[in-house]
């Protein structure tokens, strides 16, 4: 092949070799691929892959997407045939002898979820979805669930060990999927750095600095000035807050949005924290901690975050007060 003729890059769209200047070929070098998807795990997904060639970047992208699909079939509560749902139907939800033996991914989640529940004193609770169901039903009738409705569920969640019930690893599962997708892509040949951001939780690997803006709490606007900007390398960030989802209840003619974050210890919707962000080595930990920090009182949350090494946190209280620790401040730009 003449040096002027080179195979066109890209996903096989071109049949004919394209004419290129020879000096352009030598400049080749690493490429950075960016892709934005919607409807990944019910939210938006951003992939950024730095690789030696376009083909290697595409292979890494496919590996990440395949891992996301595979794990969604394990952890999803929306897909009726996910492994988690089959396991729950198999008797785990009712406490009967379970006929389904969890595979390695589900077993990991069950064990780590329990660890986080113990470490956060039930602020992160895999069984908290039972509360969500009460809230959803009540909000559909334009009211807030009463204490008498919540009390039995709160008792079941807070007995030790918790009574059997449906489990939902939402936050933790998303973090785990991000971690696995990121590592899967990073393990492909020729890949130097990877960023996976699914719905606002992200992890990056590789020797590149990544700028991460923390969305301003209390506004949904995509063009609002960020709350903070971080500069990270090989770390994960997760943010938890009531900005985008919640329970709408019309009260005295005015619609009020109750945060979708429910305190498993009281059953109440969280009011004192607007948003909590966590930097950690892996996204699963960051996600579980962010959920716990948005439920705990800010002082307790800060203490909890500081009990882990290499962990940063920012807690924005409803009063407007910002609390962050040294590891967070060290990564702020």
């Amino acid at each position, binding site marked *: 092949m003449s040096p002027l003729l080179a195979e066109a890059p890209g996903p096989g769209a071109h049949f004919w070799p394209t004419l290129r200047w020879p000096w352009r070929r030598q400049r080749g070098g690493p490429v950075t691929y960016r892709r934005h998807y*919607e409807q990944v795990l019910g939210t938006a997904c951003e992939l950024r892959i730095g690789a030696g060639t376009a083909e290697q970047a595409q292979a890494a992208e496919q590996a990440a997407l395949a891992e996301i699909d595979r794990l969604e079939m394990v952890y999803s509560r929306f897909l009726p045939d996910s492994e988690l749902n089959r396991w729950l139907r198999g008797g785990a939800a009712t406490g009967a002898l379970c006929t389904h033996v969890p595979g390695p991914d589900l077993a990991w989640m069950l064990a780590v979820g329990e660890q986080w529940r113990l470490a956060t004193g039930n602020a992160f609770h895999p069984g908290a979805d039972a509360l969500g169901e009460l809230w959803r039903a009540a909000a559909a009738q334009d009211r807030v669930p009463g204490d008498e409705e919540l009390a039995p569920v709160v008792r079941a969640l807070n007995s030790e060990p918790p009574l059997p019930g449906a489990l939902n690893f939402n936050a933790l599962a998303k973090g785990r999927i991000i971690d696995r997708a990121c590592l899967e892509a990073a393990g492909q040949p020729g890949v130097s750095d990877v960023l996976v951001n699914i719905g606002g939780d992200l992890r990056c690997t590789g020797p590149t600095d990544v700028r991460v803006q923390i969305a301003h709490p209390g506004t949904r*606007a995509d063009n609002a000035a960020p709350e903070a900007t971080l500069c990270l390398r090989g770390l994960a960030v997760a943010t938890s807050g009531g900005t985008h989802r919640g329970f709408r209840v019309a009260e005295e003619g005015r619609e009020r949005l109750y945060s979708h974050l429910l305190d498993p210890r009281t059953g109440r919707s969280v009011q004192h924290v607007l948003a909590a962000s966590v930097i950690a080595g892996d996204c699963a930990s960051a996600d579980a901690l962010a959920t716990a920090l948005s439920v705990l009182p800010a002082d307790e949350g800060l203490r909890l975050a500081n009990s882990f090494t290499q962990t940063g946190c920012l807690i924005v209280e409803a009063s407007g007060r910002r609390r962050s620790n040294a590891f967070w401040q060290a990564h702020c730009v």
Partner: protein
Amino acid sequence: MTHFPTDLTALRAADLNDSAEQFGAELARPQTRRGFLARTGLAALGLMVGRSALAQTSKAPAWAEGMELDVNFVLKTPAGRYNRPYAAVWIEDASGASVRTLGLWANTTPKSVKYLNELRRWSRGDQARRAQGGGDVVTTVSSPTRVPGAFNVVWDGRDDRKALLPQGNYTLVVEAAREDGPYGRVRQELALGGAPLKKTPEGAGEITDVVAEYRRR
């Protein structure tokens, strides 16, 4: 003002600052090169003075305190995973010049930046803007889990250089495109004054559920 220079050599620099009344008198004079230069200079000066005077007298009231334009739209969500289309939201003033880009969802890596041209109208305005310097680099964002396909931007009445604009007629434009895919553009004229208003223009292409609300912050 009764001073009429009788010959061209008497036209001093000070005369150039004189009013258009004098310029009218000059027109009747015979054509010479110096005369032509002097007249052209006077005309240009007159135009400049006139324009700035006009601009000052026709100045609209400043942006109403505490008002903002809240824009929501949805990019149609098919079942299953799909690539986000390129989208841009911006504001044009009454003359059709783009004054503020509110949101741009696109890949800005050098290899894919060419597809920005698919956002036809936005990129045309962007070329004019770029001539004045400054594009933006998109970073990644950590936020509470967002709803797929739903977007929200807020306009605070400032242009791309952060200067507050006057009240008046503006056009909100939402544009979405794909590589070799459908293209859609929604335009909504808005008379932004002191009173709140709400418009729900018809969708186009993949853009649906557009709601523009001018409201108190």
